């Protein structure tokens, strides 16, 4: 088959997500690693001589300082509380992003309203799962009702707006869905909205993730307290991580299946040529509706998980910035692909962490490299060359580290799109093509 390294022996094999043995092993290893990541696993007990400098490198240093110091291996770094929550956030956002990818990446219906559907999910979750009081509505139902319920409610709202949405194209749709975000936040100000989402600017406590059969006292599986699972001691944060990881894998699997099956092709066809698609037998309205519904479902569930992660729901959290973050995820990862979406989510969530780590490292390091670079770009506002201000108030024209974090997010979007409009996935394809010399020899 045209000089490709991967030879398939059957269409069945070719249709698998991980179609070769190498891919299967790598994927299994990766997933296993993700499951082990939050735990401390002592393995190497002696220090490796001559590797002290590794600890000086940001991010990596965190990893190596452990393995060098106490002989705790690489995977320990998530054991630090400050990495666990961001990784959990990655899983939660990935679910939402996968949904948006089906709507915007695959079906080409660009939506800036994803945050709104997440909000709908979060509100439904708290309505179904939360406790009621004189100022608040709540039914106190168990998680297996409120989590899917969050998705379903988002789908229903999605269906209500779809008659307008399906008619619109391109940026018109983007802006109308943007309007949904504003409308959604506004609903939190109505007398009935605040009974669900809690008062504006204060919010409301979110139901816990404990898995109960019904409303009984003792949960079937306790997720909200530290405890023991099998032979591991697991903290509540680690439990939540594992729960979110399992959900993220399940949703990724579903998303991938939709994309690679009949429905996915129909959606792509509509994205590329809508009239032609219709003439080829793909009913446009129906499939746009399906795309909207799937995307809303993912968003709704993710929204509930979002609020559960904060332990609290706040209408303002589901604003424009969140929607923009999703668009950035899709574009940075590479729209239309499941793996790109996952990578993109990781990237967007983790970038600020890395930036912070690096500035901190620069600020502290005195060494030949770190020290000089640090001196060049950091300043305490005393008028030297630096552009990153280490103090919190920013006299003059320099920005503080914290501002830089936001600026960098913006700059990253810009630079990424300029350099590689196809996103990380595009870079990956290019790299792969160099090796495969595809499709022509050069």
């Amino acid at each position, binding site marked *: 088959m045209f000089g490709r390294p991967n030879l398939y022996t059957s269409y069945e094999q070719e249709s698998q997500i991980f179609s070769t043995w190498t891919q299967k092993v790598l994927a299994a290893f990766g997933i296993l690693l993700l499951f082990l990541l939050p735990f401390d696993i002592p393995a190497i007990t002696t220090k490796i001589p001559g590797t002290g400098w590794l600890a000086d490198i940001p991010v990596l240093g965190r990893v190596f300082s452990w393995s060098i110091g106490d002989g705790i291996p690489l995977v320990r770094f998530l054991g630090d509380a400050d990495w666990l929550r961001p990784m959990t956030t990655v899983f939660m956002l990935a679910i939402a992003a996968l949904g948006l990818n089906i709507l915007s990446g695959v079906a080409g219906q660009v939506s800036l309203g994803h945050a709104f559907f997440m909000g709908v999910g979060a509100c439904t979750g708290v309505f179904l799962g939360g406790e009621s009081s004189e100022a608040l509505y709540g039914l106190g139902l168990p998680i297996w009702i409120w989590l899917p319920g969050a998705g379903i409610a988002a789908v229903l709202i999605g269906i209500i707006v779809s008659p307008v949405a399906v008619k619109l194209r391109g940026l018109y749709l983007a802006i109308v869905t943007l309007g949904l975000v504003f409308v959604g936040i506004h609903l939190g100000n109505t007398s009935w909205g605040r009974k669900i989402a809690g008062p504006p600017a204060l919010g409301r406590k979110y139901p816990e993730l404990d898995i109960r059969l019904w409303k009984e006292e003792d949960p079937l599986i306790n997720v909200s307290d530290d405890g023991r699972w099998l032979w591991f001691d697991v903290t509540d944060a680690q439990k939540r991580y594992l729960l979110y990881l399992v959900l993220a894998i399940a949703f990724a699997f579903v998303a991938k299946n939709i994309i690679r099956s009949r429905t996915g092709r129909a959606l792509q066809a509509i994205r590329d040529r809508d009239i032609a698609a219709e003439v080829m037998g793909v009913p446009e309205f129906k499939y746009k509706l399906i795309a909207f519904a799937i995307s809303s479902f993912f968003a709704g569930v993710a929204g509930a998980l979002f609020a559960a992660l904060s332990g609290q729901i706040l209408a303002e959290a589901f604003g424009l910035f969140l929607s923009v973050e999703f*668009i*950035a995820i899709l574009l940075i990862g590479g729209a239309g692909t499941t793996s790109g979406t996952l990578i993109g989510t990781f990237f967007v969530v983790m970038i600020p962490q890395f930036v912070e780590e690096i500035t901190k490292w620069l600020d502290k390091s005195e060494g030949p490299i770190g020290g000089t670079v640090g001196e060049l770009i950091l300043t305490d506002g005393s008028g030297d060359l630096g552009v990153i201000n280490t103090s919190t108030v920013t006299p003059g024209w320099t920005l503080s580290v914290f501002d830089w974090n936001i600026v960098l997010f913006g700059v990253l979007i810009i630079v990424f*799109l300029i350099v590689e409009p196809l996103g990380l996935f595009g870079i990956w394809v290019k790299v792969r093509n160099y090796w495969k010399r595809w499709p022509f020899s050069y």
Partner: protein
Amino acid sequence: MIRLDRDNVPLLFLIGALIPTTIFLVIQAVNDPALFLETLIKALGLGAVYALIALGFVLIFKATQTVNFAQGALAAAGALFVSFLVADEHIPFTTVPNPLINIGPEWLGWGLSVLVALIFAALLGLIIERITIRPMVGEPLFSVAVITLGLEIVLRVFNNDTVKTEFRALEIPWGNGGTTVGGAFINYSVIAALITAVVAFVGVFFFYRSKTGIAMRAVAFDQEAAMAQGINVGRVFAIAWAAGAVLAAIGGIFATQPPVKQTGAVEPETANIAFRALPAVILGGLDSATGALLGGLIVGLAEIFAGQYAAGESDWLGAGYPVIVPYIVMIIGLLVRPYGLFGTPEIRRV
């Protein structure tokens, strides 16, 4: 006779909604004509500001087929330039005093300074275009739109945190003064906004009938084909962005004045004027100057009238309901016309 088929339902709905609204307004007008007049003028003023911002959107859209989400940040930046030149009396980003401010009577120095501020705005537009938009010639349009979202984030941080945009006065000579006509108080800045909007509209309208205007549209529809006609796509982009930034700046200046704000000063919220004006652009049609003008006025009227006459209902409407009135009007408009009132429908044909 109107047949009742799927396309007509929204139209009938619209007519059905308009009739009681009109009756209600007529009653109000008879009840308290001065208040009605005052509200009307205020609404027109807000509409004019929306229209100015919307025109900026349209200009950039017509050349690049993208919505410039950074328009709000550009508006705030423009207003900041004025504040620097007028209130702080020095050239932005330097300590060099602004010599123009002392020329002639106060209003002349002020006017000249504003002119310079607009030039700065144009330069900012040019720089942004050159660095971030030009490399995207020939790339997917949606990517460009998202770049402008990135720009919005960056510019906003610079506006708010570096400059510390906390109520920086623009020192407009007429302040929030005004005159009373028929019992209704009219701010001078409302009149100024209306005049400016009309002038800008006429300018843009005629520009689109010129050869360069047509070239601009050609670029928007098919960049490659436009290049093949010898149109310098880069130049067209530059013109559009410079003009768009100037319109944004003008909009930004008015956004600090009555009826939008009372303080006459830039604040972080000034940048939000663009998001408030977006429904006007969409309602009018993303690529239509006429649409921008009419869309702006319609949305402005709806927002102010709803704020004035439905104030008693704010419990179930939700506090602050005027913010979403523009979006509601927009959605109803789009139900009737998916490309806005005057937008060019995409050619869909096999």
